[in-house]
């Protein structure tokens, strides 16, 4: 298995930090997030389902990541759990 690409690792880290901090606006406007985001989100269909999930978060709930990591160089295996 190839080592993960730096940009894939960086974007996963940045995205997780924004989710935990409740900074949803930049996640919605991901096209402005820079080259790591654009490489990680080559087409929106693969990314948008995540927005549905974080949008259900209620006050006082936390976001956790039951699965993390990048497979095959660039495939994010991240799981995001709300509540």
């Amino acid at each position, binding site marked *: 298995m190839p080592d993960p690409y730096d940009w894939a690792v960086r974007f996963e880290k940045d995205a997780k930090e924004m989710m935990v901090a409740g900074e949803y606006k930049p996640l*919605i406007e991901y096209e402005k997030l820079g080259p790591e985001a654009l490489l990680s989100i080559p087409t929106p269909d693969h990314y*948008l*389902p995540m927005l*549905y*999930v974080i949008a*259900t*978060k209620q006050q006082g709930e936390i976001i956790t990541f039951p699965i993390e990591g990048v*497979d095959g160089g660039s*495939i994010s295996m991240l799981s995001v759990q709300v509540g």
Partner: protein
Amino acid sequence: MAEILPAIFFGHGNPMNAVLENSYTKAWRRIGRTTPKPKAILSISAHWFVSETGVTVATSPRTIHDFGGFPQELFQVQYPAPGDPKLARRVQKLLAPLEVTLDNSWGLDHGTWSVLRHVYPDAEIPVVQLSIDENKPASFHFEIGKKLAPLREEGILVSAAETWSTIFMRMRGVGTCPILTIGLFALKRMQRR
């Protein structure tokens, strides 16, 4: 008060994970064992990316093998979970005044079953799929997610499965699903850097 179910996004990765046993599939199974059992699942899969918002309304949604070039084993997978027309209509109501089509043509695609067959291997929990309107901006999809939040208090597991950064699926010769091939554009972009 009823327990509020979590909402979970799964990065499903290589579709072959559907028939493999590895650290990811083990973790998916663990999620199934440790999450309170839902009455039904609303699944948002990137592989139903069309020009409208629709929900599957069939009582027995078919298993869709929406990819090419994978081993026969993957084409033989069936995930015979029942549908839940009542949940489909509830979603339609929650999202009003947005027009939501009650759809009889789609079923459960690999975004849904490649993960769920590990999370709930017995396929006993009803599943409804929600399509993603390809013409709408990201903010629209976030707003839909907000409107779906009450389902979590009604015993419904909101589950979304997709995976970003899919560029090298094709490069590694493991076959493609139609949408994954689009990732090659990004590969070209990266090579120019």
